[in-house]
């Protein structure tokens, strides 16, 4: 495992407060005035050149949002958010819609280079075998900057573009599916997102098509005081397959920034969607100053028979994470999977988990969640597995393991299991432990240092989940975990 050695090296060389992606790029940007009201929403909608129905949709969401109150059930605490102190629209100022990479602000390209995201198609073409290529949609602050490999994807019939573009070019698809998995009034943050979302990715894979490459979106919050509200919609038609990767970073700032995204996945008969996330928003410094509030609603709908949706997430960033990627197993024989690694250090707070809602017959789901808490962080798994009356032969297996490093952190498990069908078989197990002295002794005896031993044991602990990630992400995820845990050893 060369990655392990790499991880260890990384742990050695990096300081706890050294967030690799903490740089800030000085780019002129086009901002809407601070605050939230109907005019701002009209402004956003006009900026995006949206059809009238979309504006109505947003305004309706906004009016509903005004009647809602912030949820308080999650095990996270933070000062009250002033929703009027946020810029809801910030776009890098460049010519309206870059036609090619040459038109993109070089500063921006440099940013992506720093992030290690290869936007230049030639570079990818030069370096990698065609089947391993990754098409990238990059979202900078609030808007999608560039999408690569469009032509090739179009040849296969796959639509991969920013959601604003999709609204203009494929309004029927957007209208048909948007808000059908996460309804406008689903929850406080989803409703806010519905009102103010500025961009995001749109993927449509037509019937029988296996998407020829991995699709990927990188999100970055750059501007000060901005909130990022993106919306992702992925539709896999009958028999289609798509694998989608998502990565996020933000500069180091000492104020908190809000990220409230909505992701909707729709899998029709025999379709499969694999959605992987490496979330590395700025987590705040070791004293808990700054960092992103990551309040995200992600949900997949296995609408068709034999469909499958798989969520894999590696959560190392954000000051506060509030996120429950879920599957609605509506079609008969459909399958949902959730693999998660949530690492918290410093004063991070994570409240994350999943919902597997079994509605159809012979549906199955699998949940593997690994939580690692260090420093003074709190890490909660919260999940729901439910079987509806008609969900005969539903199956679920859940495993939630927590690893505690240090005595000032907390690890919590809050699973809800609801069975309304006697033929449903649900199994849940959870454990919490620390790295045992025996394991450490065994490693040290073989000449590993403390840090090396911890890195090795932690990598073993999360292996089940890492294996589910596409290769490019797996390596990145392993590095991230080591960086996140740096300073907690000993």
């Amino acid at each position, binding site marked *: 495992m060369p990655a392990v050695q790499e991880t260890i090296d990384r742990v050695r060389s990096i300081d706890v407060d050294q967030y690799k992606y903490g740089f800030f790029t000085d780019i002129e940007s086009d901002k809407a005035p601070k605050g939230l009201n109907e005019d701002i929403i009209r402004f956003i909608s006009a900026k995006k050149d949206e059809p009238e129905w979309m504006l109505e949709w947003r305004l309706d969401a906004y009016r509903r949002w005004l009647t809602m109150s912030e949820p308080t059930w999650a095990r996270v605490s933070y000062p009250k958010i002033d929703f009027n102190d946020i810029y809801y629209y910030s776009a890098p100022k460049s010519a309206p819609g870059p036609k090619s990479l040459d038109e993109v602000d070089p500063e921006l390209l440099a940013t992506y280079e720093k992030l290690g995201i290869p936007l230049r198609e030639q570079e990818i073409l030069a370096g990698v075998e065609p089947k391993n290529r990754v098409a990238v949609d990059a979202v900078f602050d609030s808007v999608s900057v560039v999408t690569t490999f469009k032509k090739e994807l179009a040849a296969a019939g796959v639509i991969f573009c920013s959601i604003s573009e999709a609204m203009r070019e494929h309004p029927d698809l957007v209208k048909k599916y948007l808000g059908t998995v996460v309804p406008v009034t689903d929850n406080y943050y989803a409703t806010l997102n519905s009102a103010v979302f500025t961009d995001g990715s749109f993927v449509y894979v037509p019937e029988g098509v296996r998407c020829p490459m991995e699709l990927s979106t990188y999100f970055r919050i750059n501007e000060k005081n901005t909130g990022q509200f993106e919306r992702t919609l992925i539709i896999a038609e009958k028999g289609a397959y798509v694998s989608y990767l998502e990565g996020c970073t933000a500069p180091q700032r000492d104020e908190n920034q809000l990220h409230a995204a909505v992701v909707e996945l729709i899998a029709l008969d025999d379709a499969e969607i694999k959605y992987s996330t490496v979330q590395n928003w700025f987590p705040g410094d070791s004293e808990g100053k700054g960092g992103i509030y990551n309040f995200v609603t992600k949900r997949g709908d296995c609408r068709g028979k034999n469909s499958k949706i798989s969520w894999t997430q590696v959560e190392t960033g954000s000051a506060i994470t509030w996120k429950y990627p879920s599957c609605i197993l509506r079609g008969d024989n459909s399958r949902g999977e959730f693999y998660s690694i949530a690492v918290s250090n410093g004063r991070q707070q994570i409240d994350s988990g999943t919902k597997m809602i079994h509605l159809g017959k012979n549906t199955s789901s699998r949940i593997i969640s690994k939580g690692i808490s260090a420093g003074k962080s709190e890490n909660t798994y919260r999940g729901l597995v439910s079987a509806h009356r008609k969900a005969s032969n539903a199956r679920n297996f859940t495993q939630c393991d927590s690893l505690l490093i240090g005595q000032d952190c907390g690890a919590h498990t809050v699973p809800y*299991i609801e069975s309304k069908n006697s033929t449903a078989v*649900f199994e849940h197990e*959870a454990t*919490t432990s620390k790295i045992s002295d025996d394991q450490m002794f065994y490693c040290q005896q073989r000449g590993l240092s403390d840090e090396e031993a911890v890195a090795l044991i932690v990598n073993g602990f999360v292996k089940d989940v890492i294996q589910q990630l596409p290769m490019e992400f797996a390596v990145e995820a392993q590095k991230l975990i080591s960086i996140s845990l740096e300073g907690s050893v000993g």
Partner: protein
Amino acid sequence: MTIEPRALETRAETELTEAWYKERDALPGNEAVAGRRKAAFDAFRQTGLPHRRVEEWKYSDLRNRLKSIAPFAARRDEAGAKSVLAGLDNVYGDVDRHRLVIVDGHFHAGLSDMAALAADGALARPLAEALAEAGEALMDLPAIATKDAAVGLNAIFCADGLELVVPAGVTLSKPVEIVHALGQDAASTAGRVVIRAGEGAEAIVLETFLGGTEGTFSNTLTDIRAADGAKLTVARLQAEAAGTTHVGTAVVTLGAKTAVKVIGAGIGSGFARHQAFVAFTGEHARADLLGITMVRKGQHVDQTLVIDHAVPNCDSRELFKTVVDDGAKGIFQGKIIVRPHAQKTDGQMMTQSLLLSEDAEMALKPELEIFADDVQCAHGATSGEIDEDLLFYLRARGIPEKEARTLLVLAFLAEAVEEIGEEVIVEAFEARIRAWLDQAA
């Protein structure tokens, strides 16, 4: 999530408020006790009856269940109490024991084996009497229990009950049975039992909850306090009549080096909530909680546990088995809390449920809340039906289907029964389990 304004006061809530103004002057206890009742009442006025928006009561909406509150039961005369008792099962048959009798929440010394108990070294007296003396010490409970709505209601309305003291160093030669009998007329009761085991004391206590009728609301609380080195086994069998609403709370406080085992069996009542709050206050203690629940015909039964590891080096084991049949609903909620610095905690919780019919329901919520790193904590939860392969195996060997099913349910429960460890309790519980299964056949 939308804003939900506090719902208008329900009829039952109004009746409880009226009951307080009517009863408060007659309720026993010194001034400090009255202060605690008042505080609990003020809290009730704020929150009302617990409902589905209250996380701890999510699956058992008491506000919805209690459409109306029957008047609180007055104390019966001895003949009246005797006739209530005569109409109920004798769960422990001819087992040699000290029997203490509570009818509708009021203790009846005249019907209890007071002399024999005293000769064995233990003391019992009506709680009303104890509350009049230094009652506040008897009212105060560990913090994890005090916020609970049902515990609060018991504090407001508790009119009597029992204080049982097993002094330091005393080992009782016989089990003590505490019968909680309910009369045939619908009434509300809020009996409370305080069991205090002194240092190194040992005892077996058998609590049985029987009787009642449609409209009965019994909200009992058993406060079990084990001083350092004490050993207690408390078996709680709830077999009230089908129409009752039963909330039974057990609060356990463990001193250092104690071992307390609480065994609960729930088969009765139309709507039952059995809750246990376990607080460790001294090191090297161990708590065992066992639960055997069997429900059918639209019954609703809820097992809720909170285990609070506030000090290092303690162990807890929880094993709960639930059998749900015929339109009934089972609930298990168990939370293990490990406080900061409660290192070397070992907490293991297992809950398994068997659904026997298509319309049976089960909800499980095992929780871990951990703030210390050097701990071993785990929970497991399963839900499913009888394994067809096992059934086939038995039937292939000539066992008729009904019998085979009975055997498999028995086998499912056996794991918990085996953990009981006290023959007296095992026999009584097994007889109940078989009777329940025979009813099905």
